[in-house]
């Protein structure tokens, strides 16, 4: 974990600037968990004296006449260029490294200390300081997650309460459905924290997701309860009827949603697996509370006046009735439209990319992105690739291998976006030059193994230590650091491949690669794979559950159409808008599918009952939309509104997550209210006589549900 503090000034080499660097260096060295700090003031400076090598800090004293000498010394060393000092000599860096064992909270403490040192130095010197490096990025991502969750929870609650108010126009049902989901949230987080699970960026999404999804069960139950009341039942009868009819669909919608989250377990990213697991648990809690605690609570309150409720829902229901009428009159047009959408969707989905960077997870104007841009423009690349070369003991004292490593460095430098390479080779050349009176002609690798060994020995005798970062004590393995600009994961991966290929084919050097680039690349592969796996698992399991619930393979398959299409369209939106698949967006599809399918379950359950009762497709479809449409629209709008809150987050990934799920819910709503009726009318998958026979009680609409308690 490294960090870099940068500032720019012309002229750079003044006593006051050097004092600033020196003071920052000393202060940063004392920050807890910081392993080492390198800057212009303490970096090793090598020179020859007679036939002996001298290694000493570049800056010995800070008096005015010295500054010019220091400038000349600093500019004369290729090793410092593009790392400690920019090519134009105006920008300088203080490089720091954190101990490997530092935990996230220790990292956060270190970064906040570093930042306060920087702010104080800025105030005293009037210079603007910039912070970069993987450490700052890592910590910023974590802190932004924590800020986000504090923002998300109240916003989600507010937005959803508004939708609930428009749905019920009465405080009681709005408050009750809310109570159920908030309690589910408390249970889930209690369990999550109680089992000592870590807090992360993904966990900041969890409350929003749980509130938006978990509330659907209570909304459906409450709307159905009021429907039963409207048939003239008392509240105990209505509760019993509601539970009897809604238990199965609610159980299955919760199951399919849980399956969507459980498909996260296919991910190779631990925090994604953990989030999926607890989201599934939370959905389970929300279901339990909706069918147990909610009815228990409901039984204590007298039912609100009927007239007010009917008026509120009236306009929406009237619109839905008209919509169904149109749908049932134009099934062909709808099916043609669907086919067109499938084509457009497939076209867009083919344009999906998995190109992503850590940096673009943050929004464009984020301070860290500004600092990164400044540092990369003025000094050097902030991404690193570490290539490890291994041989026999002493292999790296052989000029032949050193020359190969040199050729590899030069090849790496010729690649686009590469800013600097550093390895044992640079030290070998530097020492050789110093031993030859600083003659630039000797800035090369010594020719014999003896000469190499001797020069390295002299360096160690002189007290040189920096070399240890690039080669092991037995000279068996060494590393080549490549610094490059923060580019997309695809570009970074192709850079790594081209260097590894060159080493393999041209030099016959076997290489191991690590560094941020390797992490990003691994992540990218995992993302693409977990996307495919999670969708496949979700699709398979959900189709199976639907078939089981509806006890019909045919109906199960038909039910997937209005839900798979929105997912395809979501991919198309991502493809056209250039939204990449990354750790967050990769899990959207499976999840969106598992949520979207809920309304289809309610629709089909209700439709079968109505078909059995009414014995006619058109009538049954009209009746289903008429009674259920309000609940479906309401839960969809809740999801849309709830997930829209994520648009206000600090991460592009979180924003996309909210945007994509919200959009998919909208598509799925259209799928359930328009496409599904058209499909059912066209395919007539259920034989009417059979369904009528399946329904044991046939009663008219008026005395519906009477006489059974």
């Amino acid at each position: 974990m490294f960090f870099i503090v940068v500032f720019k000034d012309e002229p750079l080499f003044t006593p006051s600037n050097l004092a600033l660097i020196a003071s920052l260096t000393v202060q940063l060295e004392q920050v807890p968990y910081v392993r080492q700090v390198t800057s212009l003031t303490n970096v090793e400076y090598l020179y020859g004296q007679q036939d002996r090598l001298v290694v000493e800090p570049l800056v010995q004293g800070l008096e005015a006449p010295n500054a010019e000498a220091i400038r000349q010394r600093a500019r004369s060393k290729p090793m410092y260029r593009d790392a400690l000092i920019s090519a134009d000599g105006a920008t300088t860096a203080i490089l720091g490294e954190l101990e490997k064992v530092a935990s996230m909270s220790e990292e956060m403490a270190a970064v906040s200390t570093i930042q306060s040192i920087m702010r104080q130095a800025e105030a005293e010197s009037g210079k603007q300081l910039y912070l970069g490096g993987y450490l700052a990025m890592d910590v910023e991502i974590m802190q932004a997650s924590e800020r986000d969750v504090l923002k998300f929870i109240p916003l989600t609650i507010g937005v959803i309460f508004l939708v609930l108010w428009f749905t019920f126009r009465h405080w009681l049902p709005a408050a009750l459905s809310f109570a159920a989901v908030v309690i589910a949230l408390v249970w889930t987080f209690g369990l999550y924290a109680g089992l000592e699970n870590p807090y992360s960026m993904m966990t900041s999404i969890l409350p929003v997701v749980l509130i938006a999804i978990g509330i659907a069960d209570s909304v459906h139950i409450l709307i159905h309860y009021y429907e039963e009341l409207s048939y003239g039942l008392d509240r105990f009868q209505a509760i019993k009827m509601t539970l009897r009819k809604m238990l199965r669909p609610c159980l299955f919608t919760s199951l399919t949603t849980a399956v969507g989250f459980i498909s996260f377990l296919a991910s190779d990213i631990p925090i994604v697996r953990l989030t999926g697991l607890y989201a599934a648990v939370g959905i389970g809690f929300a279901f339990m509370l909706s069918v147990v605690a909610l009815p228990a609570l409901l039984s204590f309150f007298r039912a609100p006046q009927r007239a007010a409720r009917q008026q509120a829902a009236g306009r929406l229901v009237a619109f839905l009735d008209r919509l169904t009428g149109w749908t049932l009159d134009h099934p062909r047009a709808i099916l043609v439209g669907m086919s067109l959408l499938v084509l457009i969707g497939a076209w867009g989905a083919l344009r999906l990319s998995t190109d992503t960077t850590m940096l673009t997870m943050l929004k464009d104007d984020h301070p860290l992105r500004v600092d990164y841009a400044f540092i990369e423009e003025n000094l050097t690349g902030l991404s690193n690739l570490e290539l490890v070369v291994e041989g026999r003991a002493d292999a790296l004292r052989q000029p032949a291998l050193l020359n190969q490593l040199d050729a590899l460095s030069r090849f790496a430098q010729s690649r686009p976006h590469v800013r600097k390479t550093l390895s044992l080779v640079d030290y070998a050349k530097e020492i050789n030059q110093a031993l030859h009176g600083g003659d630039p002609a000797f800035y090369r690798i010594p020719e014999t193994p003896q000469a190499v060994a001797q020069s390295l020995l002299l360096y160690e005798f002189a007290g040189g230590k920096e070399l240890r970062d690039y080669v092991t004590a037995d000279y068996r393995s060494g590393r080549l650091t490549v610094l490059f600009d923060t580019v997309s994961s695809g570009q970074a991966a192709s850079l790594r491949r081209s260097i590894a290929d060159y080493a393999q084919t041209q030099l016959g050097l076997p290489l191991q690669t690590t560094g941020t680039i390797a992490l990003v690349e691994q992540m990218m592969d995992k993302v693409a794979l977990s996307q495919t796996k999670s969708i496949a698992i979700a699709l398979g399991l959900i189709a199976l559950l639907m078939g089981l619930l509806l006890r019909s393979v045919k109906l199960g398959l038909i039910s997937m159409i209005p839900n798979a299409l929105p997912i395809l369209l979501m991919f198309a939106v991502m493809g056209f808008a250039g939204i990449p698949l990354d750790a967050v967006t990769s899990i959207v599809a499976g999840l969106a599918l598992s949520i979207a399918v809920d309304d289809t379950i309610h629709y089909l359950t209700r439709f079968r009952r109505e078909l059995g009762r009414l014995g006619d497709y058109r009538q049954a479809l009209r009746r289903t939309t008429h009674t259920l449409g309000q609940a479906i629209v309401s839960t969809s709008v809740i999801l849309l509104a709830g997930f829209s809150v994520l648009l206000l987050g600090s991460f592009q990934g979180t924003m996309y997550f909210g945007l994509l799920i919200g959009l998919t819910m909208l598509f799925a709503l259209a799928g359930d209210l328009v496409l599904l009726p058209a499909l059912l009318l066209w395919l007539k998958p259920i034989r009417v006589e059979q369904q009528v026979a399946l329904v044991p009680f046939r009663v008219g609409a008026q005395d519906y549900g009477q006489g059974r308690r």
Partner: protein
Amino acid sequence: MNWIEALLRRRRWVLLGTLLLSLAAAWFIPGMESEDTYDG
């Protein structure tokens, strides 16, 4: 549907149990720790 009858008969106990469980859960929440997101 016996369980629904039973549920409605013992509704006070159901709500009390829910409340107690919630209090127990809420007890743990402030103890959550941050960890590294990208450990692997």
